[in-house]
């Protein structure tokens, strides 16, 4: 069982090739990012950042980055898939790629084409009901429950990133 945990940690860490580099300013690409105390899905959540927030990459491990909010002291570990180069949030269309100021977030969060406003308009036109979609989205389970689910069969989600 110990072996399988170690193996799982290893493969989880090894799977994601990196697209971001230390020193680079990147953007949070998930609605709510949990910054953790160490690289692993079970590590303590220290703080949360919102979609579009700018952060600087200060350290890298396989699959994980430690980031520092550019306008605050906040720092912590995120899985790489939770961040994107600013261009990925189409900031460059406004000529702001690489901008590290607070304005970056405002631009990234604003509008963006398909959003709640467009959904509302589409819903009205098509008579689509989103109730069940909302219910389904509520099925997200906390990471510690997922870890328990996996532990029951002898597996483990990264428990803090000790490799």
């Amino acid at each position, binding site marked *: 069982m110990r*072996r*399988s945990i170690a*193996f*799982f940690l290893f493969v*989880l860490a090894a*799977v994601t*090739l990196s*697209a*971001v580099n230390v020193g680079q300013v990147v953007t949070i*690409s*998930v*609605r709510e*990012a949990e910054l953790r105390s160490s690289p692993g899905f079970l590590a303590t959540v220290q703080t949360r950042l919102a*979609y579009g927030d700018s952060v600087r990459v200060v350290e890298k491990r396989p699959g994980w980055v430690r980031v520092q909010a550019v306008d605050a002291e906040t720092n912590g570990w*995120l*899985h790489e*898939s*939770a961040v*994107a*180069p600013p*261009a*990925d*949030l*189409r*900031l*460059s*269309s406004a000529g702001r*790629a690489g901008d590290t100021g607070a304005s970056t977030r405002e*631009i990234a969060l*604003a*509008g*963006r*084409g*398909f*959003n709640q*406003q*467009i*959904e509302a*308009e*589409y819903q009205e*036109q*098509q008579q*689509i*009901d*989103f109730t*069940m*979609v909302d219910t*389904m*989205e509520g*099925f*997200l*389970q906390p*990471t510690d429950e*997922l870890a328990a689910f*996996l532990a*029951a*069969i*002898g*597996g483990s*989600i990264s428990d803090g990133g000790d490799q």
Partner: protein
Amino acid sequence: MNRSTRIARIAMITIATAALVVSCAGLSGALGSALAVGEGLGVSGSGARLALAGVRTLSEVVDAANSPFTPEQEYYIGRSVAATILKQYPAYTAARPNRYINSLGQVLALASDRPQLYHGYTFLILDTDEINAFATPGGHIFISRGMLRLTTSEDEVAAVLAHEIAHVVHRHGLGSIRSARVIGALQQGTLDMLDEVSGAQLREVTEIFGETTSEILDTLITRGYSGASEREADASAVEILKRVGYDPHAIVRVLERMDAAQQAEYEGSREPVGFSKTHPRPQSRVNGLKASALRNVEPESRIRTDVADRRFREALSGI
């Protein structure tokens, strides 16, 4: 007929004609690497506009690392695709089996190459005998009762869910978009407005949104993904199963049962069933898997299968 009515009609017709689809059940042979997260060249922003010149389908520029849509846009497209699927298929709302497939699916997603999405991966059982599963670009994953009934163990359910997760990871739904209008809008930056829109711009963006949604529905329900996408999803599913410790050969067992179910449907029917035109026989995909992703891979499980299969039975016995 105005455009939105037409889009709605296309969506409804495509859904209605998919009586017994084994659409994404395309667990096929595997080519290439599951680790398809390449160097992110950031196909987006002004770069996306350049990259989109002359593009005929978005598959030319979309993969696990690149998308011309923002994560938020992918999420809203996914919601709309999910809501439309639920217009046709009622949800099976029993709490226990849904909790089970969410635990299982979300564990598998953490082991994927893209564990973090704008919202995250959530799973819902569809109340239909049809053998089917769908994934939206926003991480909404559906599995039918008919599909669940074909499975006999936790690793087999995991194989189906991992295959669907892989379609999200690789952005196969978005890649299937061929609409010149949608591609043109991305290229021209039509979706780059910064504030709330109104009037003609609101109508235009909503139409493009509807067209994006119906293109993806068309792929999920009628057209099917490309063979290459199915093979890529299979390869990734095998990888995910191995990472967590499930037997990667579970995918073969499900496919063989799907193949048998499909043959049973054919019997007595002179008319070819619709999906046979767009979906190769599951058995041919088994052969593909054995020649690539599962080549030289022994059936092996590193998990406690007794515990896994007990909870599988407890959660899904009534399905």
